[in-house]
């Protein structure tokens, strides 16, 4: 006998679990002010789609997917505000990336999203591909091109 996979948790749980991480990600992508609107839009979009979710798998990647699409659209509309010193993430598990992170603002939007999702949030390339609406290979390419570009600008 097979049992149906558990459905998604009450939205409150999903929201509590991911809101801070998604907020930080949007601040990285867009700067603090634009991140506020994007945050609201991300979770309103998530709510609209939530009733149709049939399982509780990959919710973190799903949240990043929505946030990435919102952020990419937002960056299409407006140039990002420069990130102030105080907005730089202070904690990062990858020190090499932490040294480059403040430069990601200058990358084209998909490269920026790919680099931040891969090195800042440790998302798998399959998830990044879903977020960017591209193939896995294209996601890998965007992240590595982004990192090469950063290295040229930065320390390496």
């Amino acid at each position, binding site marked *: 006998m097979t049992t149906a996979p558990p459905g998604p948790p009450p939205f409150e749980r999903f929201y509590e679990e991911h809101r801070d991480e998604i907020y930080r990600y949007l601040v990285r992508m867009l700067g603090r002010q634009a991140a506020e609107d994007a945050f609201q839009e991300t979770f309103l979009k998530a*709510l609209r789609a939530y009733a149709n979710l049939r399982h509780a798998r990959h919710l973190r990647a799903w949240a990043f997917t929505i946030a990435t699409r919102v952020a990419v659209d937002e960056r299409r509309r407006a140039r990002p505000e420069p990130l102030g010193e105080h907005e730089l993430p202070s904690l990062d598990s990858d020190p090499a990336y932490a040294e480059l992170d403040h430069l990601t603002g200058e990358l084209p939007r998909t490269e920026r999203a790919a680099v931040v999702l891969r090195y800042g949030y440790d998302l798998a390339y399959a998830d990044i591909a879903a977020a960017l609406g591209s193939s896995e290979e294209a996601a890998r390419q965007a992240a590595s091109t982004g990192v090469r570009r950063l290295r040229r600008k930065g320390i390496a």
Partner: protein
Amino acid sequence: MTVPTDLDARFRAEAAAQGLLDVAYDFTDSPVGTLLLATTTRGVCRISFDPEAESELEPLAREFGSRVLRSPKPLDPVRRELDDYFEHRRDAFDLPVDITPLPTFQRLVLEELARVPYGEVETYGGLAAKIGNPKAARAVGGALNRNPVPIVLPCHRVVGSNGSLTGYAGGLERKRALLDLEAGRLGL
């Protein structure tokens, strides 16, 4: 870096304003302790004496849909009527209730229960008779024990045939306090 409080509050308000929630819930202080209140767009669907959201969110999501979010605004009318009730300004609730997911028998019992007037009591057997099933006193007791909207649906007004308080899902002390309040015996 965490989400600023005002941004969090704006999102919760907007989610409700756009009609995207299956259930909005919040907490409120009352003379019988902190209550968890929940509402759908059709009416109040939960009042819980257990202020731990932990135990309520999953059942609410199962019964009404997974878009369950803490959002204070939709609960304003509920809070207002409860305040009125506890301060002796109201002896009947105008709030609609949403008990649609309940089995027919339980809905029948609760609808009959809603007719027991403020300050009076009814027995389990009496309520059973009123729904045309005089032998079902025990089943009526079970249905009342799982009343999802206590206070508004006044299961505290139902007592044993000898007048004893018998039982209350929120604890006998609360049952006594609510009956005392309605009898004007006690300023809660």
